[in-house]
């Protein structure tokens, strides 16, 4: 496992282009584009203000930089560094900006969710979509980029509009049977739209592309309901995490529950529980990083650091539980994060009142595969887009990796203590981008070819 040197970044804005060739990072009001393989700076753009949002276009040719405070969006071209584009939303303000899937339109949501402005870079044309709903996830594009679903609110009723992204033609517009729609998400095959109600009511609705209601699912009543929803990459399963600390798996044929994953405080039946144990290393780590002058990579010998951090516990294991404050809104309880592995075999979940544990479920056996108990609260976890491998971080200087074969913890070998707050897998390169508070570094996994 190798680590790159550390670069600066701000606002945790650091993204790899969809084609995996470039790495864009924002440092204050500057946008830096590097080559991923060499980490050499290719382009440097200067924006008008501190960048608050940055996004690659789908064809990896343009980068959008939004400055919400100023209501400004600037677009940069990789092919033509001289080309520039500036969109000013004016006095109405800007809260969100995103690319359309074709990479030629920019959708800006104005303050108060008054409207969504669609700017075309091809024709300079501007169109408005009124009444967008301010909610958890009110807009979603289908995976193939042809349709956009938008939650709307008119006359105290929820509606969903489906647009054809090609020319922003309104394909369908229908009312949903929700009290207060909280989010919507396309299935990966783009044929089913999952819509869920706000946390006050457990209700998940499934709509076909043509607006027909396929099914309604409700597990219980009179209690806080859905907290998170996620489709499996194969569109076979819909995982629903709720405030009752359970995940329910719904199948795509009958739209009925086929499994229920509970998150008990005492783990009794699983294959393994990995518990992180805090141990003061005898030898200071300052001696271990070796800087390779030729490649500018900090390389590390795995055996020096890997084995001593996690240990396998014998069952049953007690997982620390934090009791949420019942008087506060959005209590810290329930399953808030759900993530399927790319091969559909595993589901990783996090229960908010057991913030230090990540649960990995086997979707073939519909059983608990492993529990990763960390010493501190898990900040972020993400599946490798190509392998069943989970990377997670807890805001300390270590990177944790889980795979069906085992679990490892790696100290990020940088001086001054690089605290990993967030991480992102590179789409194909077998590497990870680790984001600290104002830094970033790349972590390169050893591929099989290298091993050979």
């Amino acid at each position: 496992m190798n680590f790159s040197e550390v670069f600066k970044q701000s606002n945790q804005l650091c993204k790899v282009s969809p084609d995996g060739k470039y790495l864009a990072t924002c440092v204050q009001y500057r946008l830096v584009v590097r080559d991923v393989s060499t980490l050499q700076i290719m382009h440097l753009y200067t924006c008008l203000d501190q960048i608050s949002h940055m996004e690659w276009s789908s064809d990896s040719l343009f980068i959008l930089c939004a400055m919400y405070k100023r209501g400004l969006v600037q677009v940069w071209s990789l092919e033509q560094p001289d080309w520039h584009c500036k969109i000013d939303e004016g006095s109405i303000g800007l809260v969100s900006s995103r690319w359309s899937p074709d990479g030629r339109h920019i959708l800006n949501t104005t303050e108060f969710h008054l409207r969504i402005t669609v700017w075309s870079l091809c024709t300079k044309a501007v169109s408005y979509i009124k009444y967008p709903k301010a909610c958890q996830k009110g807009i979603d594009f289908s995976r193939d980029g042809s349709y956009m679903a938008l939650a709307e609110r008119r006359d105290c009723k929820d509606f969903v509009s489906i647009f054809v992204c090609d020319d922003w033609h309104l394909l369908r517009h229908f009312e949903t049977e929700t009290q207060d729609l909280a989010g919507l998400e396309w299935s990966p095959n783009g044929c089913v739209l999952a819509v869920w109600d706000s946390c006050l009511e457990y209700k998940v609705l499934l709509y076909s592309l043509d607006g027909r209601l396929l099914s309604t699912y409700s597990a219980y009543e009179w209690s806080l309901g859905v907290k998170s929803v996620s489709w499996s990459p194969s569109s076979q399963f819909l995982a629903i995490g709720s405030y009752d600390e359970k995940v329910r798996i719904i199948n795509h044929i009958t739209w009925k529950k086929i499994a229920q994953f509970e998150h008990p405080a005492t783990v009794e039946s699983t294959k393994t529980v990995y518990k992180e144990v805090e141990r003061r290393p005898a030898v200071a780590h300052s001696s271990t990083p070796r800087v390779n002058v030729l490649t500018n990579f900090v390389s590390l010998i795995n055996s020096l650091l890997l084995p001593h951090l996690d240990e396998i516990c014998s069952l049953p294991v007690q997982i620390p539980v934090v009791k949420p404050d019942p008087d506060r809104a959005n209590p810290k309880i329930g399953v808030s994060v759900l993530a399927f592995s790319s091969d559909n075999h595993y589901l990783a979940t996090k229960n908010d009142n057991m913030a230090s544990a990540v649960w990995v479920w086997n979707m073939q056996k519909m059983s608990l595969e492993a529990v990763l108990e960390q010493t501190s609260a898990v900040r972020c976890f993400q599946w490798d887009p190509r392998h069943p491998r989970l990377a997670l971080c807890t805001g300390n200087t270590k990177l944790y990796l889980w795979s069906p074969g085992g679990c490892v913890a790696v100290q990020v070998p940088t001086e001054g203590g690089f605290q990993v707050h967030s991480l992102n897998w590179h789409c194909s390169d077998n590497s990870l981008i680790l984001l600290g508070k104002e830094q970033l570094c790349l972590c390169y996994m050893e591929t099989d070819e290298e091993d050979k």
Partner: protein
Amino acid sequence: MGEWWTTEASMENCEISSISHVTMSPSRQNNFVSSYLFPLAKSSYSVISAFCTEDNVLQCISYINQELASLGLCSTYIEATSPEGTGLNAVPALNAIYELLQIHRRTMSTVEALEKEQLKKSSTMELMQTSNTRLKDQLELSIREKSGLHEMERQLQLKIKTLQSCLKTEKDEVQKLQSIIASRASQYSHDAKRKEREAAKLKERLSQLLVDRKDKKLAIDVLNCLGRSDGKRGHWKTAKATASHEGEMYKSLLSDYEASQKSLMLENAELKKVLQQMKKEMIHILSPCSSSGRGATADDSQEQHHDSDGEEKMGDTSRETLDQSCEHAREQLTNSIRQQWRKLRNHVEKLDSQVSQVQNQLESNKEMIPLETHEDEMERMRCEVQQCKEFIHAQQQLLQQQLNTSFDDETAALLNDCYTLEEKERLKEEWKLFEEQKRNFERERKNFTEAAIRLGREKKAFEEDRASWLKNQFLNMTPFTDRRRCSSSDGHSALSVRSEPEIRMSSVKAQLAKSSTYTTFSTPRSSQSGAVPSTPELYRTLRLIPESSSSRHSNRGLWQECSTIEDGDNQVKAKHRGRCSDLSIFSMGEDENSLS
């Protein structure tokens, strides 16, 4: 009690008699009788004593006759022998008396029976009374209980009432709360809607304002327009375009459905395949089982075969038709599967019942089966024993052969048994050793005795010397009798030595034996009798056997130990055995002596 009852009875008797008198009195118009009827009733004894006087014998007779007649004893008529009435004709009088006595006895017996009955009745009455009181008590108790229960019921009812009222109030409260909640909810939703509408209005207004103001800033500044990502040119929104969008949407939907249908079909086909295979296997499993299982009854088995054949045919046809028509095939398939399953279930049930039957049999024939196994076991063990015997025999033979070669024929013939042979051999050796030892001891004893004799002689000489010396001294020193008496203790032995040598010797020997062992050589017996003393005596005197009993005991123990090994010719072997141990050597002297 008894006395009391009798007195009562007598009183009753009196009453009865009085009644009879009363009833009788009107029939007789005799003043006299009636005049003394009262005193009779009052004090009968005094009256009776004055009943008959010499003056009124005849009247008495007539009266008694009347009475007797009234009692129905007409046959006996008392007559006076003389007209004066001084004498009575004895026979009728006696008869009358006898009759009266009979009557009296009868009445007495009846009275007794009545008394008994009375007693019984009274006892039953008492019983009844006690039971009555008991029942009364019970009644009272139950009444009390009842009242208590009534009270409790009343209380409970009261409680229920209060609880009901409580429930009612609670229900009311719940209803109230629910209504409050509902009203709040409606109010909230109403408010929310109102607020939302207001917000929407405000938003509208804001957007309107924005439009009206013609926000100058709202602008896009692009260096040059970009081409579309797909390279096509943009086109106008037309009806055709919308139609194409619709078409595309439906196309994508259709393709998705097709894909899902395809996958479902594949899955279905796979499942069908599995079903078919299962069915085939079931048929395969069932047909031989059923035929063998019901082989006993020919009809059944034939039927079964027919059935299974039919099934197989059906299965084949269903397999064929599977591709033709889905529904038909499915129906057939499920039917046949169901049938097969039923058959399988029946079969399994039958097996279960068989197993249970077998178990029952086992339980019922619990003795039979163990006997069989027992026999088997016995047979096996017998075989084993036989084998062992053979083995032993072979070993014996081998040993015998060895013995025949190593020993001479004589000993071999003598010692058939290999074990006793060995033992005897050992004993023989020991016997030899013992004999040698014996001889040695004999020699030693002779030496000892000779030495003892010598010593005895020497002692005797010494004593004589001493005695003479003492005498001389005595005679020389003190001519007085006093002195002589004082030193008598010293001189006693000296004097006695001369007079009774035997006794003196023994006493001296005892004294000497205590002081030193060497002096014991001058044993009086050895000195006295020239013959050889018995060995144990010698040894005892020599203190070689301090406690004879313990040594003998150990010897006996050894004897017992040895006796377990051997049975025959005890006498000879006893000797052998005795010689086994060193300890016994000393005590064996006696045996030896007896033998010799």
